[in-house]
């Protein structure tokens, strides 16, 4: 069996007296698209942060040595008054990671960022444009793993569709591994190769067909799914 890209063993995250993640173990392989689902407060975002060592945790999180992570958070509480242009932000990351100048051009062309867009102040961007900047920021440095934390939650359906299509295309073209947190089960069904459910400190994992059943969803969310019914074969 090939070496896993990410190996998580007995992961436990505790905030005060509250156990958010309890003895969680799973593996992720290159090219996987792992969707993490679960009700609010089940620890999905906490898991993504722990995977990047951004919060304290117990247990083991081991990334393969060649793993390069790109992270797109749900939102960024950036100061809209900040006198910062998109290209200045991207250039700062590129310099910090000692990337060649052409990397910014490459990402800009992949995401179709115009020179006007790159020159815009981050405070002047719309929600969709801002998410595009976060995606560009994540893609800089040619990551082979993308961590998405509901990055399209504030976008309209069309923008959401475009972003996922783009990421799916990246996955096919570059073999990027994708770890996604989403409440949108149709997105999960369409793109995920495996699903990790988190609920009340418990977890389950498997292919979408096995996990996204009405029974499992009812158990997971504590109520029968009213809006989701998958009828098309994946």
């Amino acid at each position: 069996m090939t070496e896993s890209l990410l190996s998580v063993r007995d992961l436990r995250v505790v905030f005060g007296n509250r156990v958010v993640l309890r003895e969680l173990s799973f593996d992720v392989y290159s090219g996987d698209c792992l969707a993490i689902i679960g009700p609010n407060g089940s620890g999905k975002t906490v898991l993504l942060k722990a995977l990047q060592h951004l919060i304290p945790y117990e247990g083991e999180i081991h990334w393969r040595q060649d793993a390069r992570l790109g992270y797109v958070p749900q939102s960024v509480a950036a100061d809209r008054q900040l006198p910062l242009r998109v290209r200045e932000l991207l250039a700062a990351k590129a310099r910090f990671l000692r990337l060649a100048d052409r990397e910014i051009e490459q990402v800009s062309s992949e995401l179709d960022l115009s020179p006007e867009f790159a020159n815009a102040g981050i405070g002047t961007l719309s929600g969709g444009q801002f998410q595009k900047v976060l995606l560009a920021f994540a893609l800089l440095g040619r990551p082979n793993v993308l961590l998405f934390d509901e990055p399209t939650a504030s976008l309209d359906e069309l923008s959401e569709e475009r972003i996922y299509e783009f990421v799916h295309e990246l996955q096919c073209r570059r073999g990027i591994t994708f770890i996604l947190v989403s409440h949108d089960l149709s997105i999960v069904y369409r793109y995920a190769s495996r699903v990790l459910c988190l609920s009340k400190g418990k977890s389950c994992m498997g292919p979408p067909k096995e996990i996204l059943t009405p029974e499992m969803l009812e158990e997971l969310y504590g109520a029968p799914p009213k809006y989701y019914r998958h009828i098309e074969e994946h």
Partner: protein
Amino acid sequence: MNEAKAVRSRKDGGSSSVDASYSYTVLLAALFAIAAGLVGSVALMKRMVLASDVISHLALPGLGVAFLLKINPLVGGGATLFLGTLLIWQLQQKTGLATDAMIGVVFAAALGIGALVTPNEDLLEALFGNFQKLSLAGFLLGTAAVILVVVSLVHMKDRLILDLFSSELAAATGVNVPRLDLGFLLVFSLTVLVGLRFMGALLSSALIIIPAATARQLTGRMTQFVVVACVTSLVSVAAGFVISTLIFKTSTVGPTIVIVSVLLFALSLLKKK
């Protein structure tokens, strides 16, 4: 007062060594103004204006003790300034207390202890500074400190930009955010220390913050913002110095510098509208 003597000597065509030491003071004040503009720009963007204000007050107890022991006030001021800075950083990292609450406590403690231990005759100078003559060694040390501030900020620039945008994304990119915060606090304190001689414990942070606030009103581009902050700071020091020495005939120039910088800020508000 030393500096009053220096002013008088200069007017009366005093000795060249006195003139030289006075030139050192003016030159160092100008260098401080540039450092203040740079540091202030970042402090404003980091939204730590109030915290910055308190940091300068941390010097007061040390200044008071130094006056009592009759040692160089900057040694005492510098010691409590840096210890206090480390304390603030530690509190921020460990307790997660609201910065405002910490600021209130530290501000009151520093001011209370400082006022208590500083001899009455030195209190005015400790609070508002003085344009005293400066030795070559003092000038060189001050210049080295300003160079250190500028080089450190240039070195931290990219990490600061990432952190300003989002601490979380900066950390995910590999920036050690707590260390960066400490680095910036120390750079801030060092700038305050350089300005302590001219502006005193109460006013040195004012020159760091007000010109940056003025620049923010005038431009929305980062490079211009930093340059305008430095220029505004320099103009405030120059105009404050000229007005104090030539019109008010006083060596306590800090209050005048602050008033000039406030007037420039008021003008910037008009321009914005």
